[in-house]
């Protein structure tokens, strides 16, 4: 079965919208969360790195397209992020793998 082919043909409207939406909002100034020097609202554009960590982050509400508040940034290091009502603390390795754009 040519899954990729099938998927290409069936590329869904929702996906297109999401891509378009994410692309527009995340188009510029995409940078790792670790580079964000000051608190403020951000949109998560991409989560990279180890798959297990990405999955864990997703289960905690950090996945592409989600909006979050940076409460306390360690100036290129660790940070405290408020997302989906919860407050999560992240270390430098993780913040370097979360690409965000300023809102």
């Amino acid at each position, binding site marked *: 079965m040519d899954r990729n082919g099938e998927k290409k043909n069936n590329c869904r409207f929702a996906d297109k919208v999401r891509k378009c939406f994410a692309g527009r909002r995340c188009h510029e100034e995409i940078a790792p969360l670790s580079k964000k020097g000051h608190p403020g609202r951000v949109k998560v554009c991409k989560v990279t790195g180890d798959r297990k960590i990405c999955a864990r982050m997703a*289960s905690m509400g950090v996945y*592409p397209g*989600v909006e979050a508040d940076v409460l306390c940034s360690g100036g290129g290091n*660790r940070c405290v992020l408020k997302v*989906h009502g919860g407050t999560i603390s992240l270390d430098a390795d993780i913040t370097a793998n979360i690409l965000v754009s300023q809102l």
Partner: protein
Amino acid sequence: MQLKMALAGNPNAGKTTLFNQLTGARQHVGNYPGITVDHKEGSLHHQGQKIIITDLPGTYSMTAYSAEELVARDYLVNTRPQVVINIVDASNLERNLYLTCQLLELGAPLVIALNMIDVAQARGMEIKADVLERHLRVPVVPIIARSGFGKEDLLKAALRVASEKEEWLPLDISYGEDLDIGIKELIARIDAASFMADTYVARYTAIKYLENDEQIVEKGREIDSRTAQALEEIVAGITAHTKTTLDVFPEAVIADHRYGYIKSLLRQGVITRKFDSDRLYTSDKIDKVLTNRLVGPAIMLLILFVLYKFTFGWSEAPVAWLEQGIGWLSGFVEKTLPDGLLKSMLISGIIEGVGGVLGFVPLIMFMFFGIAILEDSGYLARVAFMMDRIFRIFGLHGSSVMPFIVSGGIAGGCAVPGVMATRTLRSPKERMATLLTVPLMNCGAKLPVLALLIGAFFSENKARYMFLFTMLAWIVALLAAKLLRSTVLRGAPTPFVMELPPYRFPTMRGLLIHTWERTYQYIKKAGTVILGISVLLWAMMTYPGLPEEKSAEFAIQREAIATATAPEIVAESLAGSEELSEQAKIYNERIAEINNEEAEVALRNSIAGRIGIGLESLSQLAGFDWRTNIALVGGFAAKEVIVSTLGTAYSMGEVDTEEPMSLGQRLQKDAHWNKVVAVAALVFIMFYSPCFVTVVCIAKEASWKWAFFSMGFNTVFAFLMAVAVFQIGTMLNFG
């Protein structure tokens, strides 16, 4: 017939609080994620029905990303409880319903306990439980676990669900057309082969395959490798597609849809807010300051120092009263009972031994009270976050903070729960490094030794010295961890992700319960284990006693003094009146000198004395005499015994019962002790082999190899440090 009920929910949602409310148990709860690492059972009777309740560890998902998630899911699918109570933090509904979705997808018979409804109201949220119930089609009961509000309604709803005895009916959430097509394909293969059908419904297995759940994938390969391979191929195709089109793994798409489902639910009139949902709450505003990169650590050190000031300042008077009371009791027994073994055992073995440990109860209590404030307020989780930066340098993880603190990082913990708390660490190497270094912290058992020696030799600034020795414990533990992580436990660090619980005002009831449960453990240990070991050590210090001819020699010496003294003076001394003449005092002193010498010779001749003397040639390099050696050897059994054994060893030589001296005063007056010896002894006691119970615990959590390693490594390391302190200190004349 008994009913099985499980409590599941996010970390820090209040599961253990509800568990305690329902069962009357006293499981430890705290405003810190990950307190419960294993499931705990309790029971209650309700409407004539026995209910077994299991408190599951807190999880964010039902996918095997962590040990807690594995424990929780395995329990649910293997035990199949009749009801699962899902505790949901009402003040953080969106995040908490994520797990609810997965429990519903599993098909578990659910009752939702909407906990902390009061906090949600205070945050301006109005949650319509009936609307949520209608949408989710499971009972939703608002509760306040801390006060017990809603407990009865919750039990009623749970019993109703249990009585319906329906099949586990899973909820179907749409994950977008791309994934839904894939899921259908997976389900067809799973159904055709009845793959894992006895444990999970087909759709659930399919979703877990898409989420790359390692446990299920591994299990699948073991059960039916052909079907497993076919499923993995389908999943690989879907993954490639999501990576190409969206640049994400399927689990991110699944999470997105789950949160989307939750959002749509909440927008259907479940929740109304008085304020903007994105506003920052007080807790967030506090975090802006307390977790600040520069200000945060400074405030943390200040808070810890204030904790020490508070503990030592407030406990000084009650500790002194208890010491006086124990001294009075000792004097009373001395005067009341006739001389003999019973009197010696009561005074030296029990009163001085156990009393020495119990005397520190007020100090321990104040320390635990302070720690309870930090934990219940939610500050400890922030400490973990801030300390991660430092821990990372030494090859540890931010989650190592809790085991360190539980073991005595703020002085006064216990290494046994500390070693067990390392289960929350995901990396085996980081866990092992934490497990081997937490016993270096100043646990509650070492605290009396520290308080005793600091009180005796550095009484001018007790809090400051105590703080310094706590810092020393941290530095040494971290350096030891670095050494282990650079040699035998080399490996890459794991990332730190932790949910920070909101700040909460600790309730006085909660603080008192926490303080009492820990203090009670200390008292109980003093009354049981320590009592037993104290009596055993007393026996070892008493038997075999002096040979008859030696005793006779001392008796002759006493006779000689009595013969050389006027009979009326001897009679005056024996009468024991308050006002003695000068000659009677001189007579008493000479007799006391002989008695003292006899007691010392007897102690030297005892089993423990011989061990102590045998070690003296080595231990004197660190300034320890044979009596101290007896206490240190006893400390292998339990660290509390050090104080009690020192008490026994130094009370055996004492004959001045007119004015009973405290152990601290005796050590101050002893020729073998000075400031340098005290510091060397403190260093050795702080860092040598963990106590017997901790060693067994390390063996259970890791292996006997590591348990023996910690005994040997710590003792050699501690001895070398003590020798260095003693030799350098003596050379520089600090004593």
